[in-house]
């Protein structure tokens, strides 16, 4: 039956029609559809992570609160962090990589369309695996950083850590597969004339992100493998009584973890660097400096990991090196900030929703960046470690940075993705609620932290002066949540309206705006030839005004890759292997062998399937 449906779909596609229906989404290899799948899935996880945060805030709203047990609190803060990093921000960025990169470089799809589908399915299954822990009453509870030896069998005997470690391992496969794919796509699939230094800045920052993914994820893979052997097979890598070293975990984790924070922020840098020029009606100021500062940030990312570990007592030489290297990052980051200001300076600013979010991003990120430089100094860091000051810092970069940037991208590219304009008034309401709610939630954490409120502790006693600010934070967190309710309402409201977005609603500069909104399956009826950095602006200048609306064309004669369900089968095999590992003490090796067989079956059918 499956095959027949697939045949029908192939025939359909050959006739030039968009395939429809559930099966067409399951077998899709179209980067735009995969982007939408990434976006929808990640946004759902984002809402779950947000609800977890609200529960945490309710618990902390009043002193000596018993709303959550300490155990549940541990599970919630662990899953909140893990979800927001691996299941929300990273895949929301991936949604834009998928949808936008091929359009910006003038390609019809990514280099490996089926590998792309595989990445999505592995991500989805990894996210479900991680969250299935709730159903077993065994959600991870050792923090998103999972410090050894809290994660050892001795101190965490249940399934909590197993879900976490195997879930992250699965998600790592998705990230690595996607990184290989997008690295190749950006280098190889550029349209004629699209030299590296003509690439749109979002594509550039995303490309650097892929390099970070490629080099950082193998390290956490090994860290998690060692943890798995400790927990399942009796090795002692992180067990100090046997001569192992819990600090090894911290080193491996942060060699991954620090590049990871740039993996989370660089795509947002890219989005904002696209939005600011378009709505300031000026080319990006200092394009080359923007590119090279991004590369420099990525390079430094691998040399600063131990600034997360000043409190472990590494000694003055290591502290000094890591402190200086950390502060060095302020230079390329400062270059970026001044270039953003230089872009807006003297521009003819169009006050549209994406611009609001992009401008707020710059301001919020400066606050988060400055508190980051403060942590870079070991004496200051020793005071701030494990306090709410750190929580304030990373929410200013992760939420004030990444989420504001991603929101700018969502409003900016929404018309291109769905052919509908989002409502401007609701967008601005979303913006103001989010900006105010965000600052009232997280700014007081700086003060609480400096006053000594420890993080990761489920409650606090009365009379320490923590009550008022905590209550304010809790109320504001609901304001922040309300801003996303407005966003959802905006989506639903405009979804009912007609598909009326023009190809180029913002008078933008890059190739994705030269084709209809939403793009047809093959993106470009003719592969464009690029002559400069802002091809669409140049075309409009030559034309002497706005270009006519590009016509929808028949795809006859355009060869597109066939749909395939083998990526899904392969992903299912991988997940079955992970589940088999988890149940190794119940099933013996048979679960792993069964999963491996499905995986191999999927890989072989994939390899020998005619890709078209």
């Amino acid at each position, binding site marked *: 039956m499956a095959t027949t449906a697939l045949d029908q779909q192939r025939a359909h596609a050959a006739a030039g029609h968009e395939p429809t229906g559930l099966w067409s989404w399951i077998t899709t290899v179209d980067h735009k559809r995969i982007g939408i799948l990434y976006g929808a899935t990640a946004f759902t996880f984002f809402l779950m992570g947000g609800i977890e945060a609200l529960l945490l805030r309710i618990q902390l709203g009043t002193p000596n609160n018993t709303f959550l047990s300490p155990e549940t609190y541990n599970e919630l803060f662990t899953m909140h962090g893990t979800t927001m990093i691996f299941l929300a921000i990273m895949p929301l960025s991936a949604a834009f990589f998928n949808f936008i990169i091929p359009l910006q470089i003038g390609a019809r799809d990514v280099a490996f369309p089926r590998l792309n589908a595989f990445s999505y399915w592995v991500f989805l299954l990894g996210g479900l695996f991680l969250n299935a822990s709730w159903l077993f009453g065994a959600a991870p509870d050792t923090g998103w950083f999972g410090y050894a030896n809290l994660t050892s069998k001795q101190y965490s005997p249940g399934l909590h850590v197993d879900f976490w470690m195997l879930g992250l391992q699965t998600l790592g496969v998705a990230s690595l597969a996607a990184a290989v794919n997008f*690295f190749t796509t950006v280098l*190889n699939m550029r349209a004629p004339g699209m030299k590296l230094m003509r690439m749109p800045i979002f594509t550039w920052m995303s490309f650097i992100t892929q390099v970070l993914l490629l080099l950082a994820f*193998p390290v956490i893979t090994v860290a998690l493998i060692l943890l798995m052997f400790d927990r399942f097979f009796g090795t*002692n890598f992180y067990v100090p009584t*046997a001569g*192992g070293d819990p600090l090894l975990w911290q080193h491996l984790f942060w060699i991954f973890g620090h590049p990871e924070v740039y993996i989370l922020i660089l795509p947002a840098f890219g989005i904002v660097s696209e939005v600011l020029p378009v709505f300031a009606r000026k080319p990006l100021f200092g394009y080359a400096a923007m590119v090279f500062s991004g590369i420099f940030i990525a390079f430094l990312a691998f040399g600063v990991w131990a600034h997360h570990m000043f409190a472990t007592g590494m000694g003055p030489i290591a502290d000094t090196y890591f402190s200086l290297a950390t502060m060095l990052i302020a230079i390329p980051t400062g270059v970026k900030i001044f270039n953003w200001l230089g872009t807006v300076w003297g521009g003819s600013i169009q006050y549209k929703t994406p611009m609001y979010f992009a401008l707020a991003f710059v301001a919020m990120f400066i606050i988060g960046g400055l508190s980051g430089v403060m942590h870079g100094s070991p004496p200051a860091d020793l005071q701030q470690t494990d306090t709410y000051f750190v929580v304030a810092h990373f929410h200013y970069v992760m939420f004030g940075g990444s989420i504001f940037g991603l929101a700018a991208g969502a409003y900016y590219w929404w018309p291109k993705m769905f052919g509908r304009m989002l409502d401007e008034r609701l967008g601005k309401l979303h913006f103001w609620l989010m900006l105010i709610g965000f600052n009232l939630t997280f700014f007081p954490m700086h003060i609480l932290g400096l006053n000594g409120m420890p993080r990761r502790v489920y409650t606090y006693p009365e009379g320490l002066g923590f009550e008022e600010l905590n209550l304010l934070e809790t109320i504001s967190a609901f304001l922040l949540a309300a801003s996303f309710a407005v966003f959802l309402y905006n989506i639903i409201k405009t979804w009912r309206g007609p598909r009326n977005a023009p190809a180029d609603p913002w008078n933008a500069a890059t190739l994705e705006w030269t084709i209809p909104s939403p793009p047809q399956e093959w993106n470009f009826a003719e592969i464009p030839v690029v002559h400069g950095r802002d091809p669409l602006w140049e075309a409009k200048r030559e034309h002497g005004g706005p270009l006519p609306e590009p016509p929808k064309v028949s795809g006859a004669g355009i060869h597109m890759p066939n749909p395939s369900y083998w990526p899904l089968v392969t992903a299912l095999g991988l997940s079955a292997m992970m589940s088999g590992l988890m149940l190794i003490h119940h099933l013996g090796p048979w679960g792993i062998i069964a999963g491996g067989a499905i995986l191999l079956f999927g890989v072989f059918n994939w390899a020998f399937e005619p890709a078209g």
Partner: protein
Amino acid sequence: MTDTAHAGHLETATGLDNRKLAIWTFIGSECLFFASLISNYLVHKETWLTGPGPFPHEAWTSPAGKVFEPIIEIPLVTLGTALLLFSSLFVVLALANAQRGNRKGLLLWLGLTLLCGVFFVGMQVYEFTHFVHKGLTLKTNLFGGSFFVLTGFHGTHVTIGVIWLFTLWIEAFRGKIPPAKSLNLEIAALYWHFVDVVWVVIFPVVYLIK
């Protein structure tokens, strides 16, 4: 085996085939994987507190007076190493024959590559079994754990390479690797070389340096 949206105009922006660029990218990523495993081995090979000392290389007497004889077999592993290195040469010859359209030569050299790979995996299976019999397991001490994890993951890579090359050998046997498709073999060969190069690092670090 092609998977590209560029059908119709196969040239890429760099001139390098997508799959070739992708396997290089993957190999770059794998370098960090093995670097982390090797670091773990170097950190842990002598920090044991429980279990017998690092007796694979030299005899060790426990405080209770029990003597552990050295169990490492350098001649055998050296043979395995040599064959693995030769297999890199053989796969190059196989590729040259594939590019020239010489099916017999391709089958011969690829077959020899496979034999070397299978011998290497067999050697590792023997070595692991031997160590376990002599009392060195994952759990024995930190040397055991880091040794088995490092060489085990390398062995897994070799095994995947053997399965991959065997699939290609069958394809070649059925005449499905004409010169135009020799890239299929070239990509597998790049992976195979990488796995060999990693062993070139592991062999001295684990077996030759005490």
